[in-house]
């Protein structure tokens, strides 16, 4: 066999190899990948995303979405993961996001999922605390992991001196009498207290929304650069996710089953009743007066949240609404 021929052969082979490689690369490039990290362990709080994934809404949008979760004992916050580029998208409370932004993480809100505050203080009725003012000097449980800004802003706004007691996650400190009051989420810890044997009529509740602190919570965030690089993928993600939430609203039973499946996989202890409660309440918090308000960050509430953070000295410089909120979804 002569060399020329061999060369010719090699040429062909090389050409084929290049073509194949290009094709493959081209194919894989057609399914862009997104990594999404909710800001807590899997639970019904994030049902919409699990449903969207389970029902194939992401795939249908031509996305390959990977949902990863933080661990209970992890100190690496989702924001950190976002900042390091480990994940593309995170969910975050509005105030947490504002704080992180102030710390220099260039994150932006691309959709405000929750529209209301799910925060409240809970006391035992037999503690005789019937008003916020009566919390004066009492031990109030507060998450150590963050999200303490609004509770503190609310208490401070009323010039009440309390003994804030950081707590990781359980309600045992409250149920066992280690603290007098506890900051809880309507859709989560409150039900945990109920499921630890306390009846609603044995508890006193102080909903933040009743004290002019109806600050919206869960929103979707990414880095500013991501929105510039992959606006289409993000829009697709938000659309599919909102579709997932709609499905969960219409099929709560199925949605809870999906959530439980995810939780089981992650070895997170839970039960049907609690997740049902959570889904119901989370969906309530998502409700808006106008349909077009869905996923929109209300500017006034944004300002209110920022104001609270400023007062609480959590941030020094306010961020502009338009710099912070960059919706990827096109609203009709």
């Amino acid at each position, binding site marked *: 066999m002569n060399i020329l021929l061999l060369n010719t052969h090699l040429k062909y082979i090389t050409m084929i190899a290049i073509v194949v490689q290009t094709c493959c690369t081209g194919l894989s490039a057609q399914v862009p990948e997104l990594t999404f990290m909710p800001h807590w362990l899997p639970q019904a709080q994030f049902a919409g995303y699990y449903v969207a994934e389970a029902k194939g809404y992401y795939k249908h949008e031509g996305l390959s979405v990977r949902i990863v979760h933080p661990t209970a*004992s*992890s*100190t690496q916050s989702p924001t950190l993961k976002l900042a390091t580029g480990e994940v593309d998208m995170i969910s975050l409370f509005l105030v947490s996001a504002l704080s992180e932004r102030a710390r220099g993480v260039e994150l932006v809100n691309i959709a405000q999922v929750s529209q209301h505050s799910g925060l409240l203080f809970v006391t035992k009725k037999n503690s005789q605390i019937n008003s916020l003012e009566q919390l004066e000097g009492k*031990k109030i449980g507060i998450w*150590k992991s963050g999200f303490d800004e609004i509770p503190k802003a609310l208490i401070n706004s009323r010039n009440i001196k309390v003994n804030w*007691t*950081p*707590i*990781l996650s*359980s309600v*045992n*400190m409250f*149920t*066992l*009498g*280690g*603290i007098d009051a506890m900051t809880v989420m309507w859709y989560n810890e409150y039900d945990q207290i*109920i*499921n*630890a*044997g306390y*009846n609603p009529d044995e508890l006193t509740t102080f909903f933040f929304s009743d004290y002019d602190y109806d600050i919206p919570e869960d929103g979707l965030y990414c880095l500013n650069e991501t929105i510039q690089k992959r606006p289409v993928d993000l829009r697709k993600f938000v659309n599919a996710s909102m579709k997932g939430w709609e499905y969960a609203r219409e099929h709560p039973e199925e949605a809870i089953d999906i959530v439980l499946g995810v939780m089981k996989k992650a*070895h997170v*202890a*839970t*039960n*049907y*009743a*609690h997740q049902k*409660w959570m889904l119901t309440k989370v969906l309530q918090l998502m409700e808006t007066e106008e349909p077009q308000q869905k996923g929109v960050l209300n500017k006034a509430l944004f300002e209110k949240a920022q104001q609270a953070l400023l007062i609480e000295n959590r941030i020094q410089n306010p961020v502009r609404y338009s710099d912070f909120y960059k919706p990827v979804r096109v609203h009709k």
Partner: protein
Amino acid sequence: MIIMVPMFNKSLSSRIVFYVLSLCVVLFLISLMVFYASSKQQLEEMTYQYAEEVTQKTVLQTEQFLSPVVKLAEQAGWLCKQMLNQPDSITMLTLKMAANNPEIKGMAVAFEPSFYSQKGYYFSPYTYRQDDRLITMQLGSENYEYFYIDWYQIPMHTGSAYWSEPYYDTGGGDALMTTYSLPLYRGAAAEGKPFAIVKIDVALDWLTENVSSLKILETGYATVLSGNGIFVTHPNEALIMNQSIFSYASELNNAELREIGRSMQRKKSGFVSSTLKGVERMIYFTRLPSSDWTIAVIFPKSEIYLPLRSITLILVVVLLVGLALLSIIISRIVKQQLNPLGKFAAAVHIIAEGNFNVALPGIKTNDEMKGLHDAFESMQHKLDHYIRSLTETTSLKEKIESELRIAREIQMSMIPKTFPPFPSRKEIDQFAVLIPAREVGGDLYDYYINENKLYFIIGDVSGKGIPSSLLMAVTRSLFRSISQYLTDAAAIMSGLNSMLAQNNDSNMFVTLFLGILDLETGNMSYCNAGHNPPLITTDTTRFFPVIPNLPLGIMDGFEFKKQEMQLNDNTRFLLYTDGITEAENVQQQLYGDERLLQFVEGTTFESPQALIEALLEDVQLHVDGAEQSDDMTMLALLFKGVQQKYEKSIKLKNEIEQIALLQDFIEVTGEELGLESSLVMKLNLALEEAVSNVILYAYPRLPDKEIIVSVTLKTNDLIFTVTDTGVPFDPTLNENPDIHLPATERPVGGLGIFLIRQIMNEVTYSRIHDINVFTMKKRL
């Protein structure tokens, strides 16, 4: 029982067996119910007790495991305080204690932040066991800020020891763990803020195994719940660590279960029941003394009674078998005992057919059956005897009855029964009946006519039956014979009385009414001997005025007084015996004289027969089916009136001139009888012909011979008789003349008899003792 029902009506033995068994079943059911109820209660108590014991035993076992942990923690705490200045010794302490106590998984002493300045922010020596190796390390780090973990935070804030909620050991696989945390205080008392927490980790697998192995009844199980009500162990693994009793209650939508969970948190122990998943379950729970965990046993209430069910089933089976045996035995015994009854019945059937000497079943026992046997035997003998005598009596009775029948026939033949009895006597019409109450009676009636006098009687002999009937016959015979010789009513009565009174040993008597009616004059003489006065109807109806006198046969020589009366035309009598007036209905009311009088008064007396028949009907109406107690006799008599008589004769000589005398004779007769002149003319013509015949043919030319012509009126017939002593001559033999021939050609005399036949209704000729008797009858 089902088998018994069809047999129920079959036989006595079946019935006895049925009743006995029914009673047995009822008794059994009652005792079964009592047994069931008391056993149920006992079982419940026993089960509850058992559940309690089992739980308490588990509690004890758990405590035996947990209390050393508490002791160990306290020991560690004390030691820790002794070596507080040597933090490294505390590290060694954790290692030593973990090494010396293999039952613990790990041990730590965690201090408040920056407790030892030289040890940094976190000082928390921790030794734990991994694959039989002991690893000592510092618990706290930036990644594990133990200050905020329950095992540290809760005892730190509450100031008291704390058993943590169970958790999965993330390091050592899926082992279920709990942690005992003891706060350490500087002083001896629990004052101020603790400075450190002693923490001992223990695995819960022993508890899981222990509790899982607990079995209560069939499907009962035990479970452990944490202070928050979380399932630590449960047969359904999905519940463990995932569900609290409260979330589970919420999932099942069972408010009751939630309340039970709350009771578990608040009470030391208790017994509750709840319907879980459609089954009523008993729950016994008790809280662990050292922690606020709860151990509960749960079992379906129905399972408490499972052993009872099997026992009951066995009992029922035993009883059914027992009942079956009992029924067989009882039925055998009863059948054996009652066997002779069937034979008795068969024997009685044969006896009923008349065979009294059938063999009875032999009875060896000396009981009621023997009594029955003896009674049957006695009955057999008595029946035999009775039937024999009955047969004799019956044949005797039949004989008597047949004789009585004959006697009745004889008696009835004594009294006249042909009606009308004297058809030729236009003066009277009469009818009578005699209805004896028995075969033979004591009533009588009789009548006959002698020398234009009607003798009639009606009477009643005292008593009834054969003696009366005999006396009746005697009385009747005496009446007939005596009245032949004596014509006076009183005399006849006296004669009868005298005859009957003599030799009247039986003191019987006869009431009698006797009447003698002179048919030519209408005069009636009568005599009553104590009899009911007859009824007389003329213009009115009334009782006959009678002198009662005395009944016959009572007093010999009694002077009977007779009475007389002149009867008008169409006088009616009704004679009767007291059988009529004393006829009783069922209410024992008599027919009575009054009703008799009224009835007869209201009846048109068409004929004696019609009256008697109507009266009998009325009497029957009154008695209305009541039995006749006395003979009933009636005799009705109608006196129409005395019959007129006309009889005349004339003697003529055998000369044709004598015809004129005959004409005068006929005309006088016609005048006397008031006949029409045309009839007289016709009679004249017929008699002229008849006499002419005698003159011409019987006495040819013998002028001294006599011809007698007589005329008699008998009722409505005018009878002419022409007699002569001439040669035999029968004018009736002459043929009817041919009246179409001219007179000269007709044979002599032939026309005469033709004429006579035309005028008269009946023409007869007879020759009696050389006399020609030619009779002509003309109906008026």
